[in-house]
């Protein structure tokens, strides 16, 4: 996959502290358009915290984040309608069917007539392979289907940028591989840029064009690059251990 094109995300010297506890500091990276960019690292290293900063739910204690050409600290409102987010739990609304969940952003942010909203929402569910489950409530579908439906909802407004928080968490290997395939298909079909937070090694190797690795003890970035290269060439013992599933 080519990573050519203007950066869609630019993070410079980003830090996050909670009281005296520094989660990470001086994190800088860029993400190109149509890239599948993975934020990885062990538990507690701040992957999800960094994603919350990127989607504007958390203000960095230092540094600067630019998404789609807008400064997230000042122009967050301009960015939010143009990004889609899939949270770790899926965060589907339990009182609505999958179709209604996908229709909700269309109802609020577009002037589409109701039949058009339903057709567009069914299209999104069809894209993630859930056309037949559209009328089911989230409580009646599997974990993998919930994640797919959450991706469909995140795609509702055709955002150019999609954030996925731990998409493979809690899924069996086959469902997880199916989700990886879906991410690559959606990137190919719709040209979406994906930011994926995960520590699932098989997913990282399958989908990532580039990645950054955070480390809890280093309080920041310890590696950046193409995962296959990092696996083969990195001299950092933590990076090596991560990619080769070794005990430090």
């Amino acid at each position, binding site marked *: 996959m080519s990573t050519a094109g203007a950066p869609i995300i630019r993070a410079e010297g980003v830090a996050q502290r909670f009281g005296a506890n520094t989660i990470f500091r001086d994190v800088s990276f860029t993400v190109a358009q149509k890239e599948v960019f993975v934020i990885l690292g062990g538990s507690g290293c701040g992957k999800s915290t960094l994603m919350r900063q990127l989607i504007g739910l958390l203000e960095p204690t230092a540094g600067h984040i630019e998404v789609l050409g807008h400064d997230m600290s000042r122009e967050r409102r301009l960015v939010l309608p143009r990004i889609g987010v899939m949270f770790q739990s899926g965060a589907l609304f*339990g*009182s609505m*069917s999958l*179709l*209604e969940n996908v229709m909700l952003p*269309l109802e609020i*942010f*577009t*002037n*589409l*007539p109701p*039949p*058009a909203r*339903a*057709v*567009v929402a*069914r*299209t*999104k*569910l*069809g*894209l993630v392979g859930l*056309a037949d489950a559209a*009328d*089911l*409530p*989230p*409580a*009646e579908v599997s974990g993998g289907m919930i994640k797919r439906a959450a991706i469909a909802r995140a*795609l509702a*407004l*055709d955002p*150019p940028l999609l954030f996925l928080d731990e998409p493979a968490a809690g899924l069996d290997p086959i469902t997880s591989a199916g989700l990886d395939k879906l991410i690559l298909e959606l990137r190919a*079909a*719709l*040209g*979406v840029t994906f930011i994926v937070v995960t520590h699932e090694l098989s997913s990282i190797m399958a989908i990532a064009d580039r990645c950054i690795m955070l480390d809890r003890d280093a309080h920041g970035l310890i590696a950046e690059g193409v995962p296959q290269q990092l696996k083969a060439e990195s001299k950092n013992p933590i990076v090596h251990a991560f990619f080769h599933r070794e005990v430090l």
Partner: protein
Amino acid sequence: MVDVTERPGHGEARRASLKRIDRGESVALVFTGRLDADGVARLWTQTLKAAAGARGRPLLYDLSAVSFCDTAGAALLVAAENTHGEPARLTGEAEGLDLLLERVRQALPPPRPGARASARRPAFHPLSLGLAAAAGGIAFLGETVVAGLLVPRRLRMLRPEDLFAVADQAGVRAMPLILLLGFLIGLILAFQSAVPMQAFGAVIYVANLVSISLFRELGPLLAAVILSGRTASAFAAEIGTMKVNEEIDALSTMGIDPVTMLVLPRMIAAVLVMPMLTIGLEIAGLAGMTVVMEIFGFPLAAIVRQVQGAARIGDFTGGLFKAVCFAAVVAAIGCNRGLTTGQGPRAVGVSTTAAVVGGIVATIALDGIFALIFYRLNL
């Protein structure tokens, strides 16, 4: 989106528009501008109408002047094809669009003949729902009775610390509210009665009216209503959350009877604290009445004597007996609603509401039955 994003040379043609060209043997739909959600909103009805009008003849899409198309735009094109009945043929330059269109065609197949797209909602049949609730209530009653009978064999499952915690929550912590409400009810009832009775010189009989009302009816009834709103709702929410979190299933798989461990302590605690709450409410009510009577010039000794003469011990004990029955029913309804909580985040809220409503309705219905029984027994 896709590779057709903002094609050069089409920057000005941002507003979506549609032109229908009848070519005799075929119909061409010429789209221009941005086919995004806004453009689709503008063109939806017009496009489907044009596609329906072209039935029986080949449909052509000219997308060469489309500057941008996302999945909403592609959904419009595919919906128009489905309305027309045949796939449309693309004419003109449409780089990248054919791929997107093919994806959306796969995602949005034509509707099957006779298929109806409708959200699956459970049908609302009040009678069957009522019967199911009654059957569930009877089954729960049976389970509770059996659990109660088996307590000697399951004594370890009945944890005293749970019982004391519930008694503290439902009784001691409810007392300030009970005292405040009782005082205000006594005050208001006495004042509202005293004003008209003053015209007949019968203000002293306000003591009879208020004390008998409190002992026989208002004390147990209001305490039960507070128990429903404050405690039964908490029971339903606690047990309902445990149900949603599969904690009830965990208890069952460990061989621990959920009714013995969760329901019985709550029912016992509610039954134990209810007389205390009722007496508290009645005393506070009498205090409120005393304040009004003193304002009307009656000394405390006269008020006490009047109350002693008016109310019989049977009024007081009968009220307490009713209160204990109300407490058992209200607590049972709260626990039952918790155990029958469904799935999803709304379920706990639904159970809590049902516990409060069910508790209040059951209390009033039971009070009516007690009124009949007490009348027949001349109590």
